[in-house]
């Protein structure tokens, strides 16, 4: 940390020059105070300005260092010090030029102040947002956030009083005004991605061809219960035996099977909900919805398990005499015509 800090401090020498200027101006201001008060006022302002610029430069450099190390408190304090420095500059300005009601300068400075407020209103909102986000711990370096309105989806790299810099998943970088995060809704996925919630959601719908829906015969029921069949597919571990009987609908049996199968998977959370249900019928067939949560703290792991679950659905549908709907392709049509 120390060597990293030194490297940054040496590299960013411009504000050390400002620091030296601050000392020079301070000396001159003290000297001129005794000689000419008008010059002294401007020298005092220069002294104050160079001091504030020095502090801002130092804090920005430290913010970069703290951002690299994800030192959240350090970043917050640096930004607050920047804010206080700006406040100090405004206060100093008022005191140096003796701006009071009735004074000629008051109107001019009032108008300038009003205009500056108007111009920098987003910055001011940004400051408020920054304080709000940091005080409530809503945004940290490394958080994965989405801002739907701006189409931004990535990892937070830097947070300042006015902007948030994000590294998007498509490897581009976005810088957005921090005030957006106060005015519009944003999604912080960090808790989910670090495995601190029930898990990552899979919400998939499969269209099952209704042509293959049927009630099972006694022969089929016996087959489902047979040792050979279960050696291969193991369905009795996940389907209550009393559900396997002549006249039972294969689609219902499959829904129950899939539900119990998911409930027993070591990476599937039973809470907050695990749903396997039929939803609206569409012209292609019946839609089977699967709504489950995978326990993991890694995107790749989640995708892997999601694929395993989907593959199991594709595989197991056939055991129950069901199949997924597939719109006929031109190849299918041509093959059919050729056969005819």
């Amino acid at each position, binding site marked *: 940390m120390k060597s990293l800090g030194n490297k940054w401090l040496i590299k960013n020498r411009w504000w050390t020059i400002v620091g030296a200027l601050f000392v020079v101006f301070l000396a001159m201001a003290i000297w001129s105070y005794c000689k000419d008060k008008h010059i002294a006022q401007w020298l005092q302002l220069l002294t104050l300005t160079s001091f504030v610029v020095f502090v801002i430069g130092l804090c920005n450099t430290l913010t970069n260092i703290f951002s690299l190390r994800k030192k959240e408190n350090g970043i917050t304090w640096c930004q607050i010090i920047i804010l206080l420095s700006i406040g100090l500059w405004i206060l100093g300005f008022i005191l140096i030029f003796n701006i009071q009601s009735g004074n000629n300068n008051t109107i001019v400075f009032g108008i300038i102040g009003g205009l500056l407020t108007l111009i920098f209103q987003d910055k001011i909102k940004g400051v408020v947002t920054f304080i709000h986000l940091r005080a409530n711990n809503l945004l940290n370096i490394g958080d994965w956030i989405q801002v739907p309105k701006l189409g931004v989806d990535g990892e937070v790299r830097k947070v300042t009083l006015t902007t948030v810099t994000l590294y998007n998943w498509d490897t581009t970088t976005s810088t957005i005004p921090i005030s957006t995060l106060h005015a519009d809704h944003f999604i912080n996925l960090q808790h989910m991605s670090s495995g601190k*919630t029930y898990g990552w959601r899979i919400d998939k719908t499969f269209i099952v061809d209704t042509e293959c829906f049927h009630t099972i015969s006694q022969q089929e029921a016996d087959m489902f219960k047979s040792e050979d069949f279960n050696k291969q597919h193991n369905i009795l571990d996940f389907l209550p035996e009393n559900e396997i009987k002549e006249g039972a609908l294969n689609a219902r049996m499959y829904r129950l099977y899939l539900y119990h199968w998911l*409930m027993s998977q*070591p990476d599937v959370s039973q809470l907050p909900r695990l749903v396997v249900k039929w939803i609206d019928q569409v012209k292609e067939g019946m839609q089977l919805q699967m709504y489950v949560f995978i*326990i993991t703290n890694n995107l790749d792991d989640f995708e892997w398990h999601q694929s395993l679950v989907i593959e199991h659905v594709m595989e197991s549908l056939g055991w129950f005499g069901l199949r997924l709907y597939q719109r006929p392709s031109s190849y299918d049509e041509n093959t059919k015509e050729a056969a005819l």
Partner: protein
Amino acid sequence: MKKNTLRECPFEYMRDRNGNKFSEETVGNWYKSRAFVLDRLDGNQQDVVVDGDSPLMLSVVRHLALYSHYISNKPTVITLVSQNATIEDELKKEEYLCHLVDYLKRADCDLDIELRTVKEFSDDLQGVRITESDVNEFVNKKGHDDVYTVDTRKAVLAQRIYELGALIDNLTAEDIHSTKRYAMALDAFEYLLRDKIKPLIDKAQWENDPIKVKNGLSSIYSADCFELRAFAINNDKNYKKWEENNEALSISEHARWVVERLIMGYRPINHEERMQYESLFGQKRQAYFKVLKNNVQDLAHIDICSYRDLRRIDPNSLKYDSFLMLAIPRILKRLKH
């Protein structure tokens, strides 16, 4: 007998699944083996060789299983030396290990203890050797009350934690190890700690309600491990240390709880019960959960599973382990350990 203790005799209230009380000899062996094992365990993980298969030595095995839970990646090996060909059946009796024997054989068992049986003692066996004469010698040295009664103060306070945990719904189910989220509940507990410690045993209730007895004993077994937990984090009185190790401690506590439940006669749910449980929703599922765990003739518990499975099956229960682990230093401070 030490001053400022609350000594009670809880084991006499234990009943088997048919509602019969255990013999005096069995109860006596429990007291002896409990006192002996607690005296022997110093916090350092150690494998143990129990040389002998008398009822007293089998009780020692029972208490070793109850208390040998450490924060470690490797299980504690308990080796029983016995020439009895049916020793496993003997161990499966309710007064010894009950369902634990079968559970340890399951492929999905992730408990932190391992049970082995050998025909003869040899120097190659790993662990500290315990013989019946060791136990008897220890019992003879100790005063009657030190062996045949239990200081229940810690257990009373542990029970308060369970009761408080059950009351406070907002103890998070997700992000269970975010210790900051227990802050308010712990403040409430510290307030409760000021109350006078009343006896654990309510004779009228304990005589008639076997579940109450099991829950009371559960608090005792849990509380008996407090010092071991403290040792695991180098007896650090700093609460921060307990927070940092909360997850590891909670995992260990869950393993201890599973062993304790299995020994106390609970079994994991079977295939049919699982199907039934999964087919019920909301209040009905909760009601079925209670039916299973309160069926005195055949006790079963959903939460008898690995910690990982508990996180996906019944995450609301995770709070008890985490909360208790955070409360231990406060309890020990209150009792000036």
